[in-house]
């Protein structure tokens, strides 16, 4: 569905992306992952058409994104920002309805089917009860769900999320990732940036790991995430362990609290 081939990009003469190749298929939840400064955001913005890569090809459903207009791109890919500040108190319903914009024509008057799509999207992430609430008073987790509902309402083949859970508490992180898992299972391709290797290990089908510069590993996280890989990208800061049949990444040298260990 999304196919990235031989992508190169440099910024201020520093190579950020080098020879990136990967693809995301229908129904896959792909975690894009790597340390700070490894080019996650740049790759992300290239895929969305916000910046034009120096070399290489990005395709959606075999169409070159350089040949798509802004409107056509928006019909193929939806984008969920990491954080959204809203200066005006739009209601949740209105925010979700805005996702229908690439399908509206003329004076952009939302039609019955747009309203219906917005309602379905809100039901799918379980925020129908918030429809009339102003977006700006919601909690961080609820706001993220609204933005995801907007992306669903956009009715695209793919959804890109920029660190969807970076500002959320533990419960909301799980809630958002589970929602993403469910959306992917219903046939949408998802590419999500994350800083937390555990999220990728627990929820994603496939992963793209970036080091600097270039691709370090890709594929099923349960196979890809090895002690060697973690040592390479995090310089020995963490250990790969197991819980149930999942991998779990722990900080290395973790001991119990020193005060308790000393028997105080």
């Amino acid at each position: 569905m999304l196919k990235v081939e031989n992508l190169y990009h440099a910024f201020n003469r520093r190579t950020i992306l080098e020879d990136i190749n990967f693809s995301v298929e229908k129904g896959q939840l792909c975690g894009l992952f790597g340390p700070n400064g490894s080019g996650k955001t740049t790759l992300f913005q290239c895929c969305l058409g916000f910046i034009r890569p120096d070399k290489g090809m990005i395709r959606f459903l075999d169409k070159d994104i350089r040949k798509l207009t802004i409107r056509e791109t928006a019909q193929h890919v939806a984008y969920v920002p990491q954080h959204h500040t809203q200066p005006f108190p739009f209601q949740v319903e209105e925010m979700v309805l805005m996702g229908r914009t690439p399908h509206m024509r003329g004076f952009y008057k939302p039609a019955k089917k747009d309203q219906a799509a917005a309602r379905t999207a809100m039901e799918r992430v379980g925020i129908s009860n918030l429809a009339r609430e102003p977006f700006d008073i919601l909690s961080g987790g609820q706001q993220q769900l609204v933005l995801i509902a907007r992306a669903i309402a956009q009715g695209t083949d793919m959804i890109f999320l920029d660190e969807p859970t970076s500002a959320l508490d533990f419960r909301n992180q799980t809630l958002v990732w589970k929602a993403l898992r469910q959306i992917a299972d219903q046939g949408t391709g998802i590419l999500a940036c994350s800083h937390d290797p555990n999220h990728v290990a627990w929820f994603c089908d496939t992963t793209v790991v970036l080091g600097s510069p270039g691709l370090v590993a890709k594929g099923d996280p349960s196979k890809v995430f090895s002690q060697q890989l973690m040592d390479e990208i995090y310089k020995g800061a963490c250990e790969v362990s197991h819980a149930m049949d999942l991998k779990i990444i722990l900080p290395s040298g973790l001991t119990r609290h020193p005060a308790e260990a000393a028997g105080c």
Partner: protein
Amino acid sequence: MKLNGKALLLKLDFLKQNKTAGLTGLALLVAGTACFCMGTGAKYIPAAMVGKTIFSHISGFWDGSDISPLYHTIIWKIRTPRALLAIMTGVCLASSGAVFQGCFKNPLVEPYILGTSSGAAFGAALGIMFPSFFMSVQMLAFAFAFLAVGLAYTMARTRGETPLVNLILSGIITGSIFTALVGIVKYLARDEALREIVFWLMGGFYYAGWTDVSLMLPVALVGFLILWSHGWKLNILSMGDKEARALGIDPEKNKFILISLSTLMTAAAVSSVGIIPWVGLMIPHAARLIFGPDHRVVLPASALLGALYLLICDTIARTLTQTEIPVGIITSLIGAPYLFFLVRTRGQRM
């Protein structure tokens, strides 16, 4: 105070659900207020008579010969163009204020932010100081208003994009340059010209006539309709450039169209009536408070409220004392406490 604000918001919720009814009511209110305001003044004329006189002029089949010629002169030659000019200025300033606030994602932006007012002020000051110049005061003001915004926009543009921070900064820069230039003109001007410049800067509808109306009507009407047709896009633009792009709206193209059109409208208003503050800043706030943030409603509501506000302020300006007070003073004196009220009650939610 806090409780009152809440009760007010509850009452206003009715209008958030019934937007068409609210807008129609507002339009009727503007028409009624216009009739009342045209009756008020040095010579009081009942509103019904005002309506009758205007009707006799716009309907082709009745010449209103039983109305006194004095009424014809006062209503049709003096007060009607003045009221129309106030309405159109209100429409231009308030709707372009709403557009600027939407484009800049910032509810504290006003249409003068890119230097329109200081540019116009310099143009007008030049025109007043050199009356023999081939362009009129109005045209000079208009030309310099556009020049200032053009400068600000060009300065802000880097690598095919116009980031908001750049735009605001370059607006401040051009604004201060032209303010300094106005200072030079004021310093060099003779007493008479200086007095005239100062009066122009405070804004007013003193010399309103049918020529001004015919010059401004197309700009106000066509400009407003195009802005209104971009209402939904403005909602999307207020999400920020990246999200707008991802939602299929080209931010650069649409912001350019909207900003140039609002600049045109602001410049047309400023060049014919001078610098009238506060309308473009606070009226869109009032519109959002009443009708919610959807720009498809905020734009017409701002236009109507702006018209209403300027009609009332101008009537106060010309009737409060023996001589006329510049209307800019009235709009600020009434506007500032209102914004204070807004800031205090907004703490809960707007």
